């Protein structure tokens, strides 16, 4: 296998990568001097992938909400004991998480890296789903779901996504519901596993003080011995999401100290992947910093009017088949905040951002991006996230620095369109 190299001049870092015969993509970023070695194995399979056509099949498979997350939990079952113990014996720390678009299994260790990597490859490639295991997991995940239900911010965010989207599965909680997870059985788990955990749908990222050739030799031997056959891509079936929002406003009453407010804008114009998607994400993050960051006029106005505190924030998320902006925080008066905020954003759409403001937040974003490279976790998880969306983390800086004022103002006008907006509010009981 020959390595290809991606080098970042500014970061003075390199990532080498290759693709194995079975289709698995392998990335390694050497970071000499770090004690920790970190590996993450991810599949392009998230909570939104609940309707699909298996390769070669004519019929559509539909699975219960929350199953990707449930499967993630269940891969930790091992006939010889719990996976956590195997890593603990190596002094390694293992974990996993499920997002809308991907599921990731990771470990971090300062010793026994080779054995830990073997264990990671083993447990992710050897499912062990049983009725007893599923029954136990239903109890645990029910408590996880109830924990989220007691988090007002979680409710605020879920209510907003349900308002923004008519049918797209991003509006469904990643963990599913207490009812939907009760419909999960071992057979359905095996169907999902077989569909989405083929190496051609997966990628591995390793970062730390490691030798890329040794990592590659180990992974190639492991995956090569498992006899995978080539596989065409899975066909994911997302429903056609109509333009406009499902509901303009959603309110809930919960035992909170102060009201919570979130304003969302659905982005119907986002490209599904590649450099264009990355560029829109980068541009929107700059727009939101310039429009609503601590140095913006609008933030200062809202802060002085005692409508926001410094935990007020704005964020753009795009996952290929969906994209949106969420702005919000705690407030004494959600209605007053809504009026001032939407008025301020409309003013910005008319007048546009100033050149100086864009340049300043560009400098800020460049420096903050460099700072993030202290974190091996950020590097590995960030890299695979952008890779799965058809871009590269290393393109981020170039894209960031080349955004023009016209472009920023065009995206601002498109994305922060009141016709695509919904509001979610949580009020104290």
């Amino acid at each position, binding site marked *: 296998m020959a390595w290809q190299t991606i080098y970042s001049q500014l970061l*003075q870092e390199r990532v080498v990568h290759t693709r194995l015969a079975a289709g698995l993509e392998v990335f390694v970023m050497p970071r000499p001097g770090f004690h920790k070695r970190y590996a993450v194995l991810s599949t392009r399979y998230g909570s939104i992938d609940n309707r699909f056509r298996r390769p070669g099949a004519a019929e559509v498979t539909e699975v219960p909400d929350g199953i990707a997350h449930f499967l993630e939990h269940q891969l930790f079952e091992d006939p010889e004991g719990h996976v956590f113990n195997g890593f603990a014996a190596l002094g390694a720390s293992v974990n996993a998480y499920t997002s809308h678009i991907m599921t990731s299994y990771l470990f971090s260790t300062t010793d026994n890296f080779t054995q830990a990597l073997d264990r990671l490859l083993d447990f992710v490639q050897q499912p062990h789903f049983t009725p007893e295991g599923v029954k136990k997991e239903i109890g645990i995940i029910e408590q996880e779901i109830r924990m989220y239900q007691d988090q007002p911010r979680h409710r605020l965010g879920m209510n907003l996504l349900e308002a923004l989207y008519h049918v797209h599965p991003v509006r469904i909680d990643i963990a599913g519901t207490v009812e939907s997870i009760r419909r999960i059985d071992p057979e359905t788990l095996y169907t999902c596993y077989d569909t989405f955990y083929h190496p051609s749908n997966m990628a591995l990222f390793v970062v730390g003080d490691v030798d890329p050739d040794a990592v590659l030799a180990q992974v190639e031997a492991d995956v090569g011995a498992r006899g995978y056959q080539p596989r065409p891509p899975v066909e994911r079936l997302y429903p056609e999401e109509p333009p406009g929002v499902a509901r303009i406003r959603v309110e809930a009453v919960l035992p909170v100290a102060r009201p919570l407010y979130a304003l969302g804008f659905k982005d119907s114009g986002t490209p599904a992947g590649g450099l264009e998607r990355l560029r829109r994400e980068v541009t929107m993050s700059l727009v939101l910093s310039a429009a609503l960051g601590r140095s913006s006029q609008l933030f200062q106005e809202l802060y002085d009017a005692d409508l926001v505190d410094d935990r007020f924030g704005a964020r753009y998320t795009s996952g290929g088949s969906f994209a949106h902006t969420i702005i919000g925080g705690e407030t004494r008066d959600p209605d007053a905040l809504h009026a001032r905020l939407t008025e301020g954003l409309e003013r910005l759409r008319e007048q546009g951002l100033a050149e100086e403001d864009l340049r300043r937040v560009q400098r800020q974003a460049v420096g903050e991006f460099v700072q993030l490279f202290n974190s091996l976790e950020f590097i590995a998880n960030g890299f695979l996230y952008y890779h799965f969306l058809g871009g590269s983390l290393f393109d981020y800086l170039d894209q960031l620095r080349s955004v023009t004022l016209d472009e920023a103002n065009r995206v601002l006008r498109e994305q922060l369109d009141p016709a695509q907006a919904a509001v979610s509010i949580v009020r104290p009981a």
Partner: protein
Amino acid sequence: MQIQFEPIAIDRGYTLWVAATEKFKTTTVKLVLRRNLRADSYTYTAVIPFVLRRGTEALPTVRDMARYLENLYGAGFNADVSKVGETQNIELLVEVAHDRFLPEQLGLSEKALAFLGEVLLRPATEDGVFRREYVAQEAENLRRRILSVINQKPQYAMKRLREEMFAGEPFGLEKYGDVEELRRVTPDGLYEHYQHVLATSPVDLFVVGPVEPAQVAAWVRQHLTLPRGDIETPVAATPHPEGAGEERVVTEEQQVQQGVLALGYRTATRYPDADYPALLMYNGILGGFPHSKLFINVREKASLAYFASSQLEATKGVVTVTAGIAVDKYERALGIIRDQVDALAAGDISEEELENTRKGLINGMLSGRDSPGRIIGGRLVGLINNRVRPVPELIDDVKRVTREDVVRVAEGVRLDTVYFLRAPAAGGQ
């Protein structure tokens, strides 16, 4: 490649700690003013960093400050209070990107120190004291911050447990002050208290990054010379009161989906003690890891919870246990937790539990060497406890801990308070 602090005495009770390293992409600067956490002053002390963060003479508004920091390639600036044992510490943090990774060389390390000097020595004032508006807003923001903990049930349960268990002890005080007293903070009183804090607190200034210690010391003398009076060295923690250890149960009702159980234990061991490494092992075996007794027995075997873990506060010598459970599983969960604590005291600790915990602790400590924040945090805890434990030394100590050592620590552990946050019984209104 060991990262080590070189201490440089700047003035009376004022030490500069420089860890010169090229490992990170940042320079991290943290200045800490250490105080006793005491009922008569803690509210005023808590407000100080938040008012300092509002502005300086030269950059009098949040917006001015944010613009300045954004132009320094997104320099991070935070001001907060921390509570370690019964000390309350004002912490000011500035983090800048390493010049080498930026498009231009601005000398950001020196600028970070100069900025801190402005914040501490030339805050925005009016009529010779802090600006009235800033004091009122920040005191109110802190009040809201304290009250909004109710939005996060596990944190809320922990806070309530602390209040109940440590009523009358400094450790029971909230680090952000008293909600009622916050209403009464005046600009005059606060400014006067600040002058006292500045002159009498031990000051530790940490710098981790690509710097040269003598050069940093010169910058500090130029930009950060502080007034020095009679230094008041804080006491890390008062002894547990005589007779403490009587078990107490506190139940509170809220409309929640999930009950939160929080247990507080007093230990006979603290950070400076010879048995501290054994206390680390004790907490790790009980509930610090996914291989620990609590996780395995409460979550994996009984399927009762999504989270079940223990936390150690070694400066005061306190272990807490938290678990999110169904309300009707209270007795069962409590029974299982008690059984785990009893098992440790009885020496019922497998070889595997002992060794896996040892490895897990060492992995955690070594991983901490990869994070500027954790390098600084570890040293600060040592200074507060007047017993610095360098990581290599502590690792050696942990390697030597025996089962007998853990049992000896376990024998000194006493359950003090059980706190349960639950939903009202069905049928009752």
